[in-house]
């Protein structure tokens, strides 16, 4: 297990959570490499082929009335709300697997898309398409789950 192999380098680190987090990054990369090796990786070159995204836009490329983004208020205020993070978690779980993985590597673990693509052996454009979709899904999900409840 990579968790045990990494144990030695853990000595003196700041905490159990940090240690687990470091392992998680390798786990996610491993899972994706494995998927790719077995040919289950679906390249996503086509921007226009995602129902969940299409539902947010009209045919002419403008926002659907029901999906128009509204203000989330000040970021600092949002980050201090426990409820925001609960909704954020729930929305991450609702993402398709590969979208959640690439988004986690990029935004939660701070890897560059260049690094992610080198690690996974996919085209950088592919990463950008996946991230674009992940962000659109997340924003719609968070807005529904968080904002609408806050103002209710």
């Amino acid at each position, binding site marked *: 297990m990579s968790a045990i192999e990494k144990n030695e380098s853990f000595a003196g680190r700041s905490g159990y959570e940090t240690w687990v987090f470091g392992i998680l990054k390798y786990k996610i990369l491993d899972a994706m490499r494995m998927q790719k090796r077995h040919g289950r990786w679906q390249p996503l070159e086509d921007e226009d082929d995602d129902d969940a995204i299409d539902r947010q836009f009209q045919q002419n490329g403008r926002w659907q009335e029901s999906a128009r983004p509204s203000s989330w208020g000040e970021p600092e205020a949002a980050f201090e709300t426990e409820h925001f993070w609960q909704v954020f978690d729930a929305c991450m779980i609702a993402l398709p697997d590969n979208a959640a993985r690439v988004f986690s590597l990029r935004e939660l673990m701070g890897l560059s898309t260049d690094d992610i693509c080198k690690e996974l052996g996919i085209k950088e454009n592919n990463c950008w398409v996946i991230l*674009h979709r992940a962000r659109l899904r997340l*924003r719609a999900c968070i807005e529904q789950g968080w904002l609408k409840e806050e103002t209710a």
Partner: protein
Amino acid sequence: MMMCKGATRLMSLKQDRPLTFREQISLRLHLSMCGACRECDRQFTLLHEAGEKFVQEHDPDKADDPQQDEDEH
């Protein structure tokens, strides 16, 4: 003329690499006319900041140097 859907592509891209001059201009032009997209742009930035906050608190490789990611671009 770029529509909202195309504008969100650039807003997302902006979080991952610097936009080219041409991309910046067309995004700015669209945002100047579209309130919904300005909110979306703020939301993508907020998602990015939420991630950064999370990284700084948890990631052993980045915890000592939160600027590292910026320097790579």
